[in-house]
């Protein structure tokens, strides 16, 4: 590899893959780099494309190094920001890591530094989405006695909500499925696994039909809708605030917002 040209690092879109890239950048002393997720590979006219194979040992070395240089909150922010999947967030995170490794004090509270502030802001919006999913997941009881929910979060937050749901619903089987990213979490009363599902062709994720769900499921949804209506105070109507808290893009999966 020649050092002067731009290197496009193609990796498998995992966090470990990204950390492996960082390892190679240091190892090969690469100066100008950009990142590309494997599933989104585009032919580029400029620069040299190199595929980086995820290596857990290399990834872990980078991660340990970063963790030593940042506070616990700072390294968590890095991970959160990565899950935002924003275009070229990797380059921002690379700068963040480079600065962190150089700094003698943990720089994650240096909010006067644009990179640090930006990472903390992105991490904050991912955190907000995580919290929203903890709130907006609506389970429906299937005929197989599994509580099933589908979501389409803006960011890839499934890895972040696993623990929350596991400790909360320890005595019921559940699946939370990300339709956008086509994978989900399945808790079988013992542990949480990552799963891929082939949903039946006639399965409409916005509907609750007797074919897939228990008969009482519709009743509980109706009761919930009734409750939602009754607890509203008409004299205080405030649509703007309502939409600010429950943005319209989530309505599809909230039974209380169904017409």
């Amino acid at each position, binding site marked *: 590899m020649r050092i002067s040209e731009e290197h496009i690092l193609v990796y498998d879109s995992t966090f470990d893959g990204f950390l492996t890239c960082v390892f190679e950048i240091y190892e090969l002393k690469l100066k100008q780099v950009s990142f590309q997720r494997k599933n989104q590979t585009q032919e580029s006219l400029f620069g040299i494309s190199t595929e980086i194979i995820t290596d857990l040992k290399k990834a872990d070395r980078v991660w340990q190094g970063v963790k030593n240089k940042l506070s616990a909150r700072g390294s968590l922010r890095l991970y959160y920001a990565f899950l935002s999947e924003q275009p070229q967030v990797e380059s921002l995170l690379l700068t963040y890591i480079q600065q962190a490794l150089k700094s003698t004090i943990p720089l994650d509270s240096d909010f006067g*530094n644009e990179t640090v502030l930006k990472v903390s802001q992105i991490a904050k919006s991912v955190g907000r989405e995580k919290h929203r999913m903890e709130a907006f997941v609506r389970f429906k009881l299937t005929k197989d006695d599994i509580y099933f929910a589908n979501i389409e979060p803006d960011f890839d937050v499934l890895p972040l909500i696993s623990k929350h749901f596991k400790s909360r619903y320890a005595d019921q089987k559940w699946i939370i499925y990300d339709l956008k990213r086509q994978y989900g979490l399945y808790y079988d009363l013992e542990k949480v696994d990552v799963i891929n599902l082939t949903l039946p062709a006639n399965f409409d994720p916005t509907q609750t039909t007797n074919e897939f769900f228990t008969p009482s499921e519709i009743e509980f949804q*109706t009761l919930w809708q009734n*409750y939602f209506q009754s607890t509203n*105070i008409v004299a205080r109507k405030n649509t703007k605030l*309502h939409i600010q808290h429950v943005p319209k893009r989530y309505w599809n999966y909230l039974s209380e917002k169904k017409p």
Partner: protein
Amino acid sequence: MSFERTQEKLKILADAAKYDVSCSSSGSNRKNTNKGIGDATGMGICHSYTEDGRCVSLLKILLTNHCIFDCAYCVTRKSNDIKRAAFKVQEVVDLTINFYRRNYIEGLFLSSGIFKSADYTMERLVAVAKKLRLEENFNGYIHLKSIPGASDELMKEAGLYADRLSVNIEIPTKEGLKLLAPEKNREDFLKPMRKVQNEITQYQSEKKIIKSTPKYAPAGQSTQMIIGASGESDQQIMWTSNYFYKKFNLKRVYYSGYIPISYDHRLPQLGTDVPMLRENRLYQTDWLMRFYGFEVHEILNNDHQNLDLEVDPKLGWALRNLQHFPIDVNKADKLMLARIPGLGMKSVHKIIQARQFRKLNWEHLKRMGVALNRAKYFLVCDSRDFERRDLTGPQLKSIILQNSTSKYQKILSPQLNLFE
């Protein structure tokens, strides 16, 4: 569970419970250790928001809306001609569990009209909580209403199963209470509150010695006051609130703008606007007392008995106390930073952390999210640029108002109607 009957009851008893504004589901520490259902350790979660913008966190219902009292401000008062209903204990348990399993709610907020007697009612509330904990292995959040006049024994038991207990004093002044709820007296409200407070204190000291001491109301106590039903001043409200925070160690005091529900001549007439802006200003004051290090008398006192609706209470205080400003954000301590209008506690913390690395200037503050339109008149930073004019409070207020828009614009300057 018959679906139609439950549906009917739920409509009536949720509708009657909605004026209780508490929706908090945080502050408890109940872990799911028994592989049961639910966990109340984290922060609270608002699972939805009603069209009025209020959060839905708990299943908030009355056990019954039958009531032997006739308080003028209350929808379930005896003399009101409305449909009445009552849940069975098991019905409430089933609803709670099934809603919780579907991730609709964080738990249950159970209140009730008072039927037969205070103790009879409190006993039923406790029975629901007990059943949820012991039979259903439920570790979610439970908020029970302390019924005024309930016995010490029942209040003690209630705290063993509930995360939070609350009793609403509703009317901020004794005189108001006498006028609107002549059958009730203040002491009935205070008695269960005092009992719970003593139990919490006792629990905390025993816990230090015996780790397995059963939990007692880990999320503490709260109360609520109705705003604008009895002609009280903001000073009366907030001083009462301060009294309850200090004396009873309450976690929260809620303020609920009165929503006209009756033709009673003692109350604001039907159709009167809900005092939402005033309510908002009271909450801001409450926050200043609890998180910003303000004493209530700094904001409300005999010279200033009501809050200025046009500006937030911190800005109001700053305009009356210009001698403390400008504050240097690169030097001032946390408590002084917290007094700068336009700076929330989050910004304060960010500033304290960030200034260890470099001196902060306007650009840094702006990027961190400080509301400079207000703050810029009250601070200096690493810049030669700052407000040099010697402005008086009223002058400054009018400059700030001209350069900002309030979401309450409509309430503040109602358009003149020519044909009225």
